[in-house]
Structure formats: structure tokens, C-alpha cells
């Protein structure tokens, strides 16, 4: 796999990565517990196992950069800085949620931190990133936009159209393909007529690399290079991250109907969080400081769930609120 050279990130960034990956995991574990217990949360697509991708990519971004996400978007949200308590409240359908309880898991959005939306119509968020990058150019800023999508989405025409547009307009877009091997139950070796998704970048005259998506530093290095290239006017890039989803496509999906137990076991042995923890311990960080971050994440989820449960439901006035914006006054000739 390609391994772009990059300076080792600063100590704070390493700890931030560890803390964020742990926070995504804690969030998903907690949500799974609640869903399994019967708390109604609608369809939930757990990000568990892919944490290094979202965190590695977002570590290369500024807060005013943008990301467009997928149906499996909780990790992207947390990595970009969306408040976990407001995410949990959203899944509870509460008025304190990111979307006032009107979006749910598949639409979590927080534009204040550049998170342009979880998007459950596969591939359809990718042109939004292209448009955000176009917006940056027209408004004269140096913001970068990231389009996350799965390997399954690369069979959608819109992803290819978006790559072509970004390339001919030389826009600062980073296309991040999270290749977790399965589109629901359909394996990538069946569905993709290419050896690596990154190979498809060549068709759009952009650099494409494949990295170990379980290694947050490898993801960061590739993303950082692509983000810098985009910000400097070098156009779009494609970064393919090889990863694995530990759970089913969504809650209640029994993966052993279509995946081998040995395959899952092998994948779990490459859990990105213990891998990174070992790396950090080898670099001289102490178990105690990492444990402190883990404990803080657990406390954060305790607080988030309590906040969500105590929050009010949306009132009936929310039903018709915001379908159309406020009318503009008429301008007479």
C-alpha cells in the first residue's frame, strides 16, 4: 500500500486522534446498547471499526473546512467536532438534537463545524463537497471540502461525475473512499470492476492512493497531503482507505449470513484503536494518560445519554416549521 511521507504529527494531535477514535467507539457502543435494549432510534449504521478513517482525515482539516458524509456518518460527525450530546439527542428525536429531532441518524448535520450532512442516498453527498469547494473559490477563501463515500458508492454515476467536475475545475476536494469490503451484503470483489478504487483516480487526472484504513497515521498522512495539495490550488485527490465494519450494515443485520467468522475475527484483530494505543505506548505515552482520555469519553457518553433522555420532544409546531423559508418582501418596479 502507498505510504505517503509526512512528518509525525504533533503530540497534541496524536492525543486528539486517540481521544476522538475512542469517542466514536464509545458513542457507537453506547448507541448499540440502547438500540439492543429497544430504545427506538430508527435505522442506525454503526461506524465501529472504521474510526481511523474519519479521525485520520479530519485531523488534517481546519474547522472551517467542510465534509460531506454518508449513511454511516457518526464517525465523521464526531471527528469534525459535532457535539456528541446533540447527536445522541437527535437519535432520541429530541428538540435539542443537532437537527431539532427532524433528521435522525441518517441526516445529522452541523454546519457550524463544517459538517454538511450525513447522507443516506448513497453517493449523493459527493457533489455537495464539489459545490462547497466551488463556493470557496468563488468567495475567495482557501477552504477545502472532503467527500466521504464507501466503495459501494463508486458504482454510482454521481461519484464519477463529481470527480470529473472537481478535476476539470481543479477544485480543492478530497475524495475519501472508505473501502470496508461490503455494500450492505454485496462484497466489493463482486461489485467493483477494478482492483483498487484508487485506480479510478487516473480516469479523472487526479492522484489516487490506497492506504491502510486501520492505521490512523497512514490515513492522516495521505489526507494531509491531499488537503495541502487542494488548498494550494493543486486540485482534487482520491484517498482509498481499506477498512472493515465490525457490525452489520445497520442494527440487527446478522453479518454471519454473508461474512465468514474467520474473516471477522481477523479484521477485529486489526482494530484501529488498540493498534493506535500500542503505537502511542511505544512512542512514550503512558497508559495512565490514555486511560484518562477513555474515562473522559465514557463520562461524556453518560452525560450525553442523560441529556438526551431529559430533553424535551419537539412540539407540534415543529411539524410544518421550516418547509419553506420566510417570504421576502415584494420589490415593486
Amino acid at each position, binding site marked *: 500500500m502507498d505510504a505517503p511521507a509526512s512528518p509525525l504529527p504533533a503530540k497534541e494531535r496524536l492525543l486528539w486522534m486517540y481521544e476522538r477514535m475512542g469517542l466514536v467507539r464509545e458513542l457507537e457502543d453506547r448507541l448499540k446498547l440502547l438500540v439492543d435494549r429497544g430504545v427506538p432510534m430508527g435505522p442506525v449504521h454503526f461506524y465501529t471499526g472504521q474510526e481511523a478513517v474519519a479521525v485520520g482525515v479530519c485531523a488534517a482539516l481546519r474547522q472551517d473546512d467542510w465534509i460531506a458524509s454518508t449513511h454511516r456518518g457518526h464517525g465523521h460527525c464526531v471527528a469534525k467536532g459535532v457535539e456528541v450530546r446533540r447527536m445522541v439527542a437527535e437519535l432520541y428525536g429530541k428538540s435539542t438534537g443537532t437537527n431539532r429531532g427532524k*433528521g435522525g441518524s441518517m441526516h445529522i448535520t452541523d454546519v457550524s463545524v463544517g459538517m454538511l450532512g450525513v*447522507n443516506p442516498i448513497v453517493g449523493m453527498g459527493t*457533489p455537495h463537497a464539489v459545490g462547497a469547494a466551488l463556493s470557496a473559490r468563488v468567495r475567495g477563501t482557501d477552504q477545502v471540502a472532503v467527500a466521504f463515500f464507501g466503495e459501494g458508492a463508486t458504482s454510482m454515476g454521481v461519484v464519477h461525475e463529481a470527480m470529473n467536475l472537481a478535476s476539470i475545475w481543479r477544485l480543492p476536494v478530497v475524495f475519501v473512499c472508505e473501502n470496508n469490503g461490503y455494500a450492505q451484503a454485496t462484497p466489493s470483489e463482486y461489485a467493483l470492476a477494478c482492483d483498487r478504487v484508487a485506480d479510478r483516480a487516473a480516469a479523472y487526472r487526479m492522484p489516487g492512493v490506497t492506504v491502510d484504513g486501520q492505521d490512523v497515521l497512514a490515513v492522516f498522512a495521505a489526507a494531509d497531503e491531499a488537503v495541502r495539495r487542494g488548498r494550494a490550488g493543486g486540485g482534487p485527490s482520491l484517498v482509498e482507505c481499506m477498512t472493515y465494519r465490525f457490525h452489520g450494515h445497520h442494527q440487527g443485520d446478522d453479518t454471519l449470513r454473508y461474512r465468514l467468522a474467520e474473516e471477522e475475527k481477523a479484521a477485529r484483530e486489526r482494530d484501529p484503536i488498540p493498534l493506535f494505543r500500542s503505537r502511542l505506548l511505544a512512542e512514550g505515552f503512558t497508559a495512565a494518560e490514555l486511560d484518562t482520555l477513555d474515562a473522559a469519553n465514557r463520562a461524556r457518553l453518560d452525560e450525553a445519554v442523560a441529556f438526551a433522555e431529559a430533553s424535551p420532544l419537539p412540539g407540534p409546531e415543529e411539524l410544518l416549521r421550516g418547509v419553506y423559508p420566510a417570504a421576502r418582501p415584494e420589490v415593486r418596479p
Partner: protein
Amino acid sequence: MSSAATVATRELTFSQAINDALRLAMRRDPTVIVLGEDVAGAAGRAHLGLADAWGGPLRATRGLIGEFGAGRVIDTPISEMAFVGAAVGAAMTGLRPVVEIMFVDLIGCCYDQLINQAAKMSYMMGGQLTLPLVVRTAYGTHGFKRSYGGGAAAQHSQTLYATLAHVPGLKVVVPSTAYNAKGLMLAAIADDGPVVVMEHKFLGTAAKGAVPDGEYTVPIGRAEVVRRGTDVTLAAIGRMTHVCLEAAERLAASGTSAEVVDLLTLAPLDEATVLESVSRTHRLVVVDEDTPTASMARDVAASVADKGFDSLDAPIKTVTAAECPVPFAAVLENLYAPDADKVIAAVEELF
């Protein structure tokens, strides 16, 4: 329209009026951009400079690139899904894009971006963003000169606005004159939500009239009584307004006084103006260039049946396109689309 008499006007076609609206909005607001297939007329090549090689099918964006440059007047490849999606993304992040889908028949290529993305974005995100997007698109029969015997046939002549008006969150406007084309376009650009502006191919050059200089808006969501009458209300959309005016003129000669209501906006529909008109005329014929099943014609009829039944002295009639794809041969296309004869025949059934 009477106030227009007090300001300077110019005689413009419908498409020139759209062009004027785009130009004025772009001058005032640097976040307004225009994108779509050939909107910049393929300008930018060495031998062309910033002059349009051609003006696009309706010529509505002609010359804009010369004034505003390639950064704001942007030709796109043939990728409706991506460039409409990019317009949505740009609208989410601070621009006011005006995106052109050359013909409404092509909305299948970008339908998700309109109905699942643009329409719902602000609502499902809890109101944390606005989506000031304008989608311009051409529709309708009788679009091209028939030097070779027919029109543009089944995939380039449709009137697919009902399928857009159906989706909550999308506003759909259908101008009928140069005056309201400019005013509705400026209102659409000023609107903080997604607005689809339907431009009839035939009206693009055929509708001509006095258009005030400078900016003004025709409010979205307001129908207009364009001819007063006492015996029957003809509710019309787009080009059908002209068909109804012709029918009303002929009906007047035979002693029937028809009122013509130009709906102008399909979503949100101005039911009040139609109901008020029917409360005076007691009869309604809805005239729609679209096919009848799940159409605006039946929707307007249902609204009046629901909320204005007591005003009615006769059944509501609809005059629509035939329930078939748009045929090519001129003789068949004429049979397909509503015309004044069909409107008059429907009116005569009411008395």
C-alpha cells in the same frame, strides 16, 4: 402591472427578460453564480475569448460571461446529477447558484438532488441552513421550428412540473410573460429556499412585452387575474395562459364572459385567488399542458371541489394534454396539447 408604467421600460422577449434578471442579480450580489450546460456558450477557448460561441438553447444566459467572467458563469459537462448536486453544495455554503437543466425532460438525471437533497435540506437539518438555489429549466410542446415536420417529441417536450411541485420544500414557478419572467426570476434568486423556474420553450422568443428596467419581483405564491370575467374562471399555467386569453376573447364574441387566472406559482399554490374568482363566476375550467394523471389540473380542481364547492354551479372541467407521450408529427402534437378550441368546448359544456 400598472405601476410599471411609471418607470422606464424596454420591449424584451421572455428569454431576454430572464437574462436581464440574471444580470441585475449578478451585479448586485457577488454570490450569485450561473452554471449549466452551455450557459457560458462554450466561451473561453483561445479563438473565442469571453464571447459566447452561442447562447444556449434559449439564449437566456447569453453575454453573461462577458460581464461576469468564467468564475461565475460556468459551463458544465453533461452531468446533471453532479452539477445540480454541486449547486446544492454551493447553496449550502454561501452562494446563490442559478443552475440550468436544459430541458425538464432531463430531471430524471438529477431528480435525487432536487427531491431528496435540495427540497428537504433545510427542514431535515432543523433549519440550521438555508438553500438559496434556483433551478431554471425549459419545458413544453411547440418548442422548435417545424421545418422538418414535427416538434421535439417525447423526451424533449414534456411539462413535468407536477412531479416537482409534489415535493414539499420545492417552490415551482411558471412565468407566462416577459414581465413576470423577470419578476419571478428575481424573486426566485432572492428566495432563501430552492425554487424551480419553468421556462416554456415557445414563450422564450414568442412572448414579448414591456419590461421595467431595474429590479422588481413578482411574488412567489401569488396567482394573477389577467382578464376579468363573470361567467367562468379559466385557471391556466404558463403557455396555457395565452391559450386561455385567446379562448376568452372568442368566448366574449359569443356572449360568454371568461375570467383568466394565471397561476404563476404551482407550489405553494395560491388557492385563495382561484377560490375568490370562482366565488364570482361559479364555474371553473383548469387548463394545463401536462398530462392529466396526478396533475396540477386535477390538484387545482380538487382544491376548489374541497374548499369552494358551494360556489359552483357546474362541474369543474380540466383541459390537459392527452394521456400519452408527446408525439413527433406536428399533426399529432397539435392533437396532444390543449388549445383554444378545446378550452371553448369545455366551457360550452358548463352552460
